């Protein structure tokens, strides 16, 4: 077990419900770190002054981490949009001090689609080469350690089984890190009836610098192959199973520096839901305290 307790933080959402849900957490200095999806402004999202203040505060405290969403790491074609995305990222990382930067495994741009949710790719030599090249560009733009987040989505069981090893090969090319998203692990455990411990061990655990926790939702199974399909929708409370995985991951990932709670903006408009979010935060704090004190 590591001796340095990871920083507990939030994924910043520039929405009013997030501001209301987190106001007291920030006021009471309970939040150690802030993660920012720094490419949101490229989609026209306006970052309100109260968000800018938080970004500046956590940047000054060396407790700001960046999370990209739309690079599309494993697209076969390197597009003008990606080039512009990297140029924007370069400027953003010059303007604020980020401890590290992550992106998603998978591809989300091809053919008629400029942006979408990341999807799995054939894990072959070509994808590996393209991914390594793009990670080098990302590292060059950010000038800080870069890492990849494991994907919730998989087209098949084989996608799930091979992802950990493939991500390890990708991040090794830039001495990068793994962002282990525990709700994404939970999705794959639920959808493919896997043993959680075995699945977690398929990832390069010594390279984990950051954990993500979130909630999600269930969709009907059209095939009838399973009761329902677990989705990484970030719109609900963190399930108990993910808290359990957190305690496990903290034991297995000795280099974890950040634990981040994610919830989509505009999904906690009611005061009870904001309270639920703070309860999730407090529960993670208890797990951290129990794991390290």
């Amino acid at each position, binding site marked *: 077990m590591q001796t340095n307790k990871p920083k507990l933080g939030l994924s910043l959402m520039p929405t009013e419900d997030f501001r209301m849900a987190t106001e007291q957490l920030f006021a009471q200095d309970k939040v150690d770190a802030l993660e920012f999806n720094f490419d949101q402004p490229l*989609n026209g999202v306006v970052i309100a002054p109260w968000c800018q203040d938080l970004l500046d505060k956590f940047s000054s405290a060396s407790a700001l981490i960046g999370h990209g969403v739309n690079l599309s790491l494993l*697209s*076969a*074609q390197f597009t003008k949009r990606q080039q512009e995305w990297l140029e924007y990222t370069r400027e953003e990382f010059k303007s604020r001090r980020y401890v590290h930067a992550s992106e998603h495994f998978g*591809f989300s741009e*091809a*053919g*008629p*689609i*400029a*942006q*979408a*949710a990341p*999807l799995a*790719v*054939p894990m*072959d*030599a*070509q*994808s590996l080469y*393209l991914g390594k090249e793009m990670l080098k560009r990302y590292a060059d733009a950010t000038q800080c350690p870069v890492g990849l987040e494991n994907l919730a*989505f*998989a*087209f*098949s*069981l*084989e*996608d799930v089984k091979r992802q950990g090893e493939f991500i390890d090969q990708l991040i090794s090319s830039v001495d990068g890190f793994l962002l282990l998203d525990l709700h994404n692990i939970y999705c794959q455990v639920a*959808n493919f009836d896997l043993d959680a411990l075995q699945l977690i061990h398929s990832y390069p655990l010594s390279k984990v610098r950051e954990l993500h926790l979130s909630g999600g939702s269930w*969709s009907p*199974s*059209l*095939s009838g*192959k*399973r009761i329902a*399909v677990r*989705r990484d929708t970030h719109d609900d409370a963190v399930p108990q199973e993910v808290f359990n995985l957190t305690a496990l991951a903290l034991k297995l990932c000795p280099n974890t520096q950040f634990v981040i709670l994610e919830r989509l903006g505009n999904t906690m408009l009611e005061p009870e839901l904001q309270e639920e979010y703070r309860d999730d935060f407090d529960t993670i704090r208890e797990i951290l305290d129990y794991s390290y004190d």
Partner: protein
Amino acid sequence: MTDQAKLSEYQDALLELLASGMSEGEVIQRLQTDPRFACYRDYVSQFDPDMVAVASELICKWAIRKPDQ
């Protein structure tokens, strides 16, 4: 054709099919029977229909199309 061009063609077709509103079974069948994607046939044969349906929903709901498409 280079491996990169093959992958590019496969990714283009996959997103186009997922965005088309076709059923998950049809998407899988098209990818499996199209001779351009013969090198991915084994990979596609493992696709889980539920997950293809999820991918299709994700693309239809969240995707942003390129300006000229």
